[in-house]
C-alpha cells in the first residue's frame, strides 16, 4: 500500500487507488497520478507521465501539466499543456529575474541532472532510470505547486502563460553551456566575490538574527538530508539482502529432511520475502517523504539566503549612490569657484539626479526589507506546516510497517512451534 503525498497539500490528501509503488512501473507504463489539492488556493496541479519525443541524445521528455482551478484569473477551469524540462527552468529564470531583487522568495526549480537523463535517454529500463524519472516528475509537480502558492507569483503573467498556453517559446537560455548559461555562471562568481567584500552596517537586529538562524538551519538540514539518504540506501540494501536470505532459507528448507522443520524453514523464507518487500516500501517512504522534502528545503533556504543577499546589494547600491552624490556635491562646490556657468549647471543637474537616485535607493531598501520580513514570515509558516504534515505521514508509514511485521511474525510463530 502506498499513499500519495505532497508537502504543499495541507488539508486533504487523496491517495491513488492502485498500488503505485514506483518500482512497479516502467517509464512507458500507465500514468501514475499524484493528486494534490490545495484547499486554500482552489487549484490543483497534476503532472502526468510523459512521452519521449525525438531519439538518441536529442530525445526529450514531454510532461503533461494539468491544471484544474476555480480561480478567476485563469481563462478556463481545466487546462492541460505539454511542457519540457527546460520550460520549467525558463519559467524559474524569468520569475527570479523579476522578483528576487524585490525580496520575494522564488521557489527554485528542480536541478538538472545530465547523468540521470542520459541514462534514461539511452533507453536503460532499470530501476534507477525508473526512479529518476519518477523523482523528476514528482519534483516538477512540487515546484509548480510551491510557485502558485505564492500570492504574487500566482498572478504573474509568465506563470499563467506557462500553465495555460499551448505553445511556449523554447527557453534556450537555460541550457548550461549556452551563452546565457555561461553569463549566469560568471554572474554567480561575481556575486560571491561581492558578498565577501560588502560589509553591511546592519541596523536591524531582526535581519542579523534571521540570517544566523537560516545559516544554522541550512547546516542542520543538509546534515539531516545526508543521514536520511544514507538510511534510504541502507534500507534498500537490507531489502535486497533479506530477499537473498529468503531464497537461501527456502533452499535450506528443501534440503532439510525432517518434514516439520523443512516446512517451518519454507515458511520462514516466505516471511522474509514479505519483509523484504516491506523494507523496500519503507525505503520509498523514507525517500519520497523525508529525503525529497529535505532536499527541497535545502534549495529553498539557498533561495532565502539569496534574497537576503539581494537586500545587501540594494543597500550597497544605496550607499554607492550616496557616495556618488557626495562626490557630485564636492565637484559642484569646486566649480562654484571656477566660474564655469554651464559646467556648474550640469553639476547641479547631476546632483539632483543623484539625490533622486539616493531617495530611490532608500525607498528600494525599505521596500525590500519590508518584503523580506513578510516573505520570511510566510516561509516559516509554510515550513512549519510542511514539516508537520510530512513527519506525521512518515510516522504513520512506520506504524504501518510495524503492524505488518507483527502480522507476519504472528503467522509464523505457530509454524515454528509445530516443529516436533
Amino acid at each position: 500500500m502506498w499513499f500519495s503525498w505532497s508537502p504543499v497539500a495541507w488539508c486533504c490528501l487523496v491517495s491513488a487507488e492502485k498500488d503505485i509503488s514506483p518500482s512497479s512501473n516502467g517509464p512507458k507504463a500507465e500514468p501514475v497520478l499524484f493528486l494534490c489539492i490545495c484547499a486554500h488556493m482552489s487549484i490543483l496541479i497534476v503532472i502526468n507521465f510523459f512521452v519521449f519525443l525525438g531519439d538518441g541524445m536529442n530525445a526529450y521528455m514531454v510532461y503533461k501539466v494539468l491544471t484544474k482551478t476555480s480561480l478567476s484569473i485563469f481563462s478556463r477551469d481545466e487546462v492541460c499543456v505539454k511542457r519540457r524540462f527546460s520550460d520549467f527552468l525558463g519559467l524559474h529564470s524569468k520569475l527570479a529575474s523579476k522578483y528576487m531583487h524585490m525580496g520575494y522568495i522564488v521557489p527554485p526549480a528542480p536541478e538538472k541532472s545530465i547523468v540521470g537523463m542520459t541514462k534514461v535517454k539511452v533507453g536503460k529500463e532499470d530501476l534507477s532510470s525508473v526512479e529518476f524519472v519518477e523523482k523528476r516528475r514528482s519534483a516538477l509537480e512540487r515546484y509548480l505547486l510551491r510557485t502558485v502558492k505564492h500570492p504574487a507569483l500566482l498572478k504573474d503573467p509568465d506563470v499563467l502563460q506557462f500553465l495555460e498556453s499551448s505553445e511556449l517559446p523554447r527557453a534556450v537560455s537555460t541550457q548550461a553551456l549556452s551563452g546565457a548559461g555561461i553569463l549566469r555562471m560568471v554572474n554567480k562568481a561575481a556575486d560571491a566575490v561581492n558578498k565577501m567584500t560588502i560589509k553591511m552596517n546592519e541596523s536591524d537586529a531582526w535581519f542579523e538574527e534571521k540570517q544566523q538562524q537560516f545559516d544554522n538551519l541550512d547546516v542542520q538540514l543538509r546534515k539531516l538530508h545526508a543521514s536520511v539518504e544514507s538510511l534510504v540506501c541502507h534500507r534498500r540494501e537490507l531489502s535486497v539482502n533479506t530477499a537473498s536470505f529468503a531464497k537461501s532459507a527456502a533452499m535450506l528448507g528443501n534440503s532439510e529432511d525432517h518434514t516439520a522443520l523443512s516446512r517451518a524453514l519454507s515458511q520462514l523464507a516466505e516471511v522474509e520475502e514479505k519483509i523484504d518487500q516491506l523494507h523496500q516500501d519503507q525505503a520509498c517512504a523514507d525517500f519520497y517523504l523525508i529525503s525529497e522534502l529535505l532536499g527541497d528545503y535545502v534549495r529553498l533556504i539557498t533561495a532565502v539566503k539569496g534574497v537576503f543577499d539581494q537586500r545587501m546589494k540594494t543597500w550597497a547600491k544605496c550607499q554607492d549612490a550616496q557616495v556618488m552624490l557626495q562626490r557630485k556635491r564636492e565637484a559642484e562646490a569646486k566649480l562654484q569657484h571656477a566660474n564655469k556657468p554651464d559646467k556648474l549647471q550640469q553639476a547641479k543637474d547631476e546632483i539632483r539626479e543623484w539625490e533622486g537616485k539616493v531617495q530611490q535607493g532608500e525607498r528600494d531598501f525599505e521596500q525590500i526589507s519590508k518584503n523580506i520580513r513578510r516573505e520570511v514570515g510566510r516561509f516559516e509558516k509554510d515550513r512549519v506546516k510542511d514539516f508537520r504534515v510530512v513527519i506525521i505521514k512518515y510516522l504513520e508509514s512506520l506504524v504501518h510497517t510495524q503492524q505488518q511485521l507483527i502480522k507476519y511474525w504472528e503467522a509464523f510463530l505457530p509454524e515454528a512451534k509445530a516443529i516436533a
Partner: protein
Amino acid sequence: MMVGAFLSHSLHPSYLHLQRSDASSNHEHLSSVLTSLCVSPQQEGLDDGPDFLSEEDRGPRAVNVDLQTDATLQVDISDALSERDKVKFTVHTKSTLPNFKQNEFSVVRQHEEFIWLHDSFVESEEYAGYIIPPAPPRPDFDASREKLQKLGEGEGSMTKEEFTKMKQELEAEYLAIFKKTVAMHEVFLCRVAAHPVLRKDLNFHVFLEYNQDLSVRGKNKKEKLEDFFKNVVKSADGVLVAGVKDVDDFFEHEKTFLLEYHNRVKDSSAKSDRMIRSHKSAADDINRIASTLYTLGTQDSTDLCKFFLKVSELFEKTRKIEARVAADEDLKLADLLKYYLRESQAAKDLLYRRGRALVDYENANKALDKARAKNKDVLQAETTQQVCCQKFEKISESAKQELIDFKTRRVAAFRKNLVELAELELKHAKGNLQLLQSCLGVLKGDT
C-alpha cells in the same frame, strides 16, 4: 550474570571482565544460546535439556534427571578476562566422578588450549566413530578495536554528545562479541561433557583439572603448512571415498543429505550475516537522524522546535529497539546457522572417516583373497582383515547413533531458536508500534 564491564577511559579495552553473580537479562541471552546448542542426546524431553547455565539449577535437578549425565559432570565458564591480545577463560567444573581430586574446581584456559583439546579428539582413533563437537572460533576483536580506534581519531570532528553516544555503542558491541566468544567456548565444553564417551577422555580431564598452563603453543608455520597439505589430501581423498556407493541405505542417504545440507547452511549463514549487517547500518543512520533532529529542535525558533525534540526522542528509542532486533536476529538466526555449519562439517568428517574405514576394509578383504590364492602370508592378511572389519563395524555402529542424535539436536535447536526469534521479533515490533503510536498521538494533538 552481571556484566561488569570496566572499559577504561582510553578507548582501548585493555581489560574487560565478565563475571557471574546474579541473573539479569544478559544471563538469559547467553543461557538460551547455550541450552539450544548443547541439548544432550540422552535426554527424553528435549526442551528440558540440562540447563548448564541456569543459576537456579546449580543443585540437584528435580526434573528429568538422567543419571548418565549432568549431575556427575557440570562444566561452565564462570569468568572471562579480555586482555589486549588474548582472552582468559575460567573453566569451572563440578563433578561427583571419582577420577577428580575435588568435587569443585576451576582453572584458567586460553583459546589455544581449547583447540588443542579439540584436535586431540579429532586425531584420536578411539573417537573416529563420533561426531566431534566443533571447535570454538578464535576470539576476534579486530574489527571492533579498529572501530574504536577510528572513533578516537575522529574525536575532534563531532560534538561531545555524539562522541559519548558512539563510544557507548562501540563498547556495547565489543561486549556483545566478548559474550559470544565466551558462549561459544562454553558450548564446546558442555557438548564434550554431555557426550557419554568423550566426557571420559583423559585429555579432557587434564584440561579441566590441571591448574598449570598446559604449555600448548599455537601451531608454528611448519605445522600449519603440514595441516594445509593434510587438508588438501583429505579433501581429495574425501571425494574418492564419497564416490564409493554405500551398501547401507541409511548411510548413503545421510551422505547425500549432509553434503547438500552443509552447502546450503553455509549459504544461508553468509546471507543472514549480510542481512543483519544492513539492519545494523540502518539503525546507526536512525541514530544520526535522531541527533540532528535534536539539534534542530534546540535551534528552531518556530513551533517546530517541540516537534523536532519529540520526534528526536522517539527515534532515539526506536533506534535502540532496531539495534536489539538486529542483535537478536544475530543470536537466534545467524549464530544458529553458523553453529550448524560447523556441526554439519563435523558430521561430514565422521562419514568420511567411516568411508575411509570401509575402503580399508574392502582393500583388506581383497588382500586376504589374494593371499589365500597365493597361499602366502595368509595369517597376517587375516589379522589385518579382522582389524579393519572391527574398526569399520565399530565406527558404523556409533556413527549411526551419532547421526540420529545429530538430527534430533538439530531439529530441537532450530525449533527453539525459530520460536524465540519469532517471539522476540513480535515483542520488538509491538514495542516499536506502541512508541510510534503514542508519539503520533501527542504530535497530532498538538496541532
